[in-house]
């Protein structure tokens, strides 16, 4: 991006970006005023965007338009959520916030269904079946399961089971000792803990690489801006 060709608005945007980037980087030196101002602007702007986007994407198409178009069946379908939403307004006052409880209860009810349904249909079944399918014939139709792939699948199977066993909670208590699980379970959970350490390590490296990429992009942005200002001959 050559800053010489930028129009005024873009130039202002670029300079603002430079200022905000340096303000946020100053947090490395400790919590300071520059960082606090930049983050306050960020909180306000993000909240503003979210409010406007939810109006444009949800309220207008799903509440105002059906009300205005006057279709009776839609009117009923929209009236109930509207009523529940108005009850939510009472949440702003400490005394009357109890009136908003039914709306929150409805949201929690729908959320609970999503939690239970999503966990069972979205995780427990797919992950269990995926572990079982590891031992299926490979899709290229090669004769049966290769030894190498069988070993890999067995490692994945053992890792999955021992990781699950690591979370086992109930234990037994001998007098004068801490509650401890049954000895084989302790052994399996120790192996599971090794698998968990490797998994968390891999995930941590992934996040670190992403953050590094973001830092590369920011440094590149700063360098290009400084380079173009230098070119323009400040």
């Amino acid at each position, binding site marked *: 991006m050559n800053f010489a060709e930028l129009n005024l608005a873009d130039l202002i945007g670029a300079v603002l970006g430079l200022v905000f980037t340096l303000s946020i980087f100053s947090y490395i030196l400790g919590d300071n005023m520059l960082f606090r101002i930049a983050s306050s602007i960020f909180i306000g702007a993000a909240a503003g965007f979210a409010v406007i986007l*939810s109006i444009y994407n949800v309220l207008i*198409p799903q509440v105002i338009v059906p009300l205005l178009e006057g279709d009776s069946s839609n009117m009923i379908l929209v009236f109930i959520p509207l009523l529940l939403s108005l009850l939510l307004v009472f949440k702003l006052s400490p005394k009357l916030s109890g009136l908003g409880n039914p709306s929150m209860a409805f949201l929690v009810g729908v959320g609970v269904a*999503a939690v239970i349904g999503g966990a069972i249909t979205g*995780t427990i079944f797919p992950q269990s079946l995926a572990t079982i*399918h590891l031992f299926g014939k490979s899709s290229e139709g090669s004769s049966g399961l290769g030894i190498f792939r069988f070993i890999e699948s067995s490692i994945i199977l053992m890792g999955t089971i021992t990781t699950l066993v690591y979370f086992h909670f109930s234990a037994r208590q001998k007098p004068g000792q801490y509650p401890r699980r049954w000895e084989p379970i302790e052994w399996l959970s120790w192996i599971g803990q090794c698998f968990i350490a490797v998994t968390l390590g891999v995930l941590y490296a992934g*996040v*670190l690489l992403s953050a590094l990429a973001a830092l*590369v992009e920011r*440094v590149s942005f700063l360098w290009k801006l400084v380079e173009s200002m230098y070119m323009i001959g400040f």
Partner: protein
Amino acid sequence: MSDIRCPMCGKTNPEQEEICQFCQARIKPLLVNYDENESDQSIKSEDEFEATDSGIPDWLRNLRQDESRELFGNEDQGFSAEKNSSTDFDENQTWLSDLRSDQRDESDESEEYDFSSSGEEGNIEDDDSFPDQEIPEWLKNIRSQPADSEIDDQKFGAETYQPPFVESESDEVVPNQQDHFLPEASSFTSISDRYEPKQDVSDDVDEKIDDEYDWVSEFVELEKENDKQPDMQSFPGSLEKIEDSQEIPDWLADLASYNETDTPHKEDVIPEWLSGDQLINEQVSEVFYSPGNDYQEQTPEWSDEPLQSPGAEESETDEPIPEFFQGTIPPFTVDIENFIGDEFPEWLDSAPAHAVQDIDGSVLEDDARIQRGDLPDWLQAMRPVETISSGHSIVTEQDNRIESAGPLIGMQGALPAEPDIARAKKTPVYSSRLQVSEKHQLQANLIEQIIKSEGEPVAMHGKPILATQQFLRIAIFTCLFLALLVPMVLGIPKAPPNQFSPEAFMLSRLINQLPGNAPVLLAVDYSASLSGELDAASLPVIDQLMIKGANLTIVSTIPTGPMQAERLIQLANQVGGHKYQMSIQYDNLGYLPGGVTGLLGMAELPRQLFPYNLLGELAWQDSRLSGIYRLADFSMILVLTDDPETARTWIEQVQPELGDTPLGFVVAAQVEPVIAPYLADSAKQIQGLVSGLSGGYSYEILMVRPGIASNYWSSYSVGVLVVLILVIGISLFNGGIQLINQTRKMGHKEQS
């Protein structure tokens, strides 16, 4: 003619002079006439005593006076008469033996005078030397107790001596029994309960004591009825009557079976501790009769250790008794001041001589009785170990002293001229230590520490915000910043990427196979934080789609997604030289709220959820989207996301609804570990994956169209290298420190 020194000014005066010539102070004490009858006698005896033993220590002189008053004042005059015969102080050591011998004679003389009969005649109440009004209630009861109640020698052998008012073991245990005067007699009412000074004992305890001993008062009435039968022989009968009429405490019943023949010898009547040598006598008197003395040395039941040797000074190293310990064992405070004054209690003197009972209950013969020198266990338990100074004992002494010098010569009960400290006498020190064994002391300390540690607030271990933490952060940032800037400034040549990852190759092949102007759904689900990485990673893919002329339909499940998508399309136009326009080549349907539930709804009913595009126009009227009713109708679905949960939701919830429509992903590096399993899976839920900057860079090389990823790649790889160096270096340093600490700790553990 010898001179006399004036006690006041210290100058010498002629012997015959009575008043000092210099300070007019009296040199010779005034002789004051005291109570005519016995007191004269006692005083005369005291003068004699004093004339000859001017050097006698006061405590001994008092003791002798007490003795003499005790003995002479007794109904049995004969005893005191003999007392007069002993004069010399040097024989004082022998007065005790005389005392003992007198007692023995007394017992021999009055064969017929046994405890049981004397009780009746020598009823404590008649003893005028002990005025009624001073006698406390409990003692009145005791004294009304018939002295002649036969003491069952089995119960009251020398070792297990118990005053008659005490119930025997088998009887009903007094409820508020806390500690035991005698180790064996577990049911013995602790003497502390009885002698507890009134002001220490709260009212309800008094009532308790009275209630406890109602049966005693009943017994006394009964006894009065039986006045006609003075001696013990009939006494058992009276007991039987009592038994018939109502329930008699067992100890009394035992008394009834007391055999006349075992008349306790006088000598045994007086406990050994009395007839012992002077030191024992002094300590016992201190223990019993020094009011206000916190006699702690009550052998707690749980202690099986013998008492420490008497007189052992309290060493500095001994810890003071922990307060909480003192609380549990009520101090054995014998405040004799209120009850008896400094005389021995009657019951001590009139205690019956009784046969000694061995542990197994068999009656010991005379010679097997405790030899004089051996102390009975209960005395051994009672004797103090280290003593503390008690202020009160001095007060007792003071009352009877007669001024021997100074202006108040001859006066009695005057405040001492010299301060206590100046007195020659070594103040008796009483034990403040519990007689506790090593093991119990450790346990007591442990309990004390545990209780003390509970109360102490543990200071919050607020870690000091060391400058090193701040310095380390700045150093890391500086290294990284320079590592990323230098390649950009110097333009270091780009290193070739890894081998092309098969997932990226699969995706490019998939896009190549698309027909022209194919409807492709583009889900832009990444936030501004990772826009740098995802822009770089997704640009080559979108560039390839634009080259194929695909009709893009953009949706987003996060609020800022639509704006991110617009920015991406502008970037692709700029970098790839394309001219994609909203509503012409692509449509932006905006933000779909509701997360997972929204996605599920879109998979089934996209038209209902997105009736309009971001410009407010009807989205599905356009010819490009005319054939699309479900997500499966799209030629391909490409998801750009930086969130593993979003990726899993697309795979697990939406992909089953897609049928054969291929699903491709461009994800951030942090999402790859979560997505990779679905790629390697035999079920092939996803058909293409580009992950992070390295994926984007290798895709650009694949398409031979350099883009943003190429610009970042050299800085990115140097950055990763610097991160590795920093992490390995600092971790080895910290790991080394921890190892050293642990080995040092192990060393300490072995030493301790």
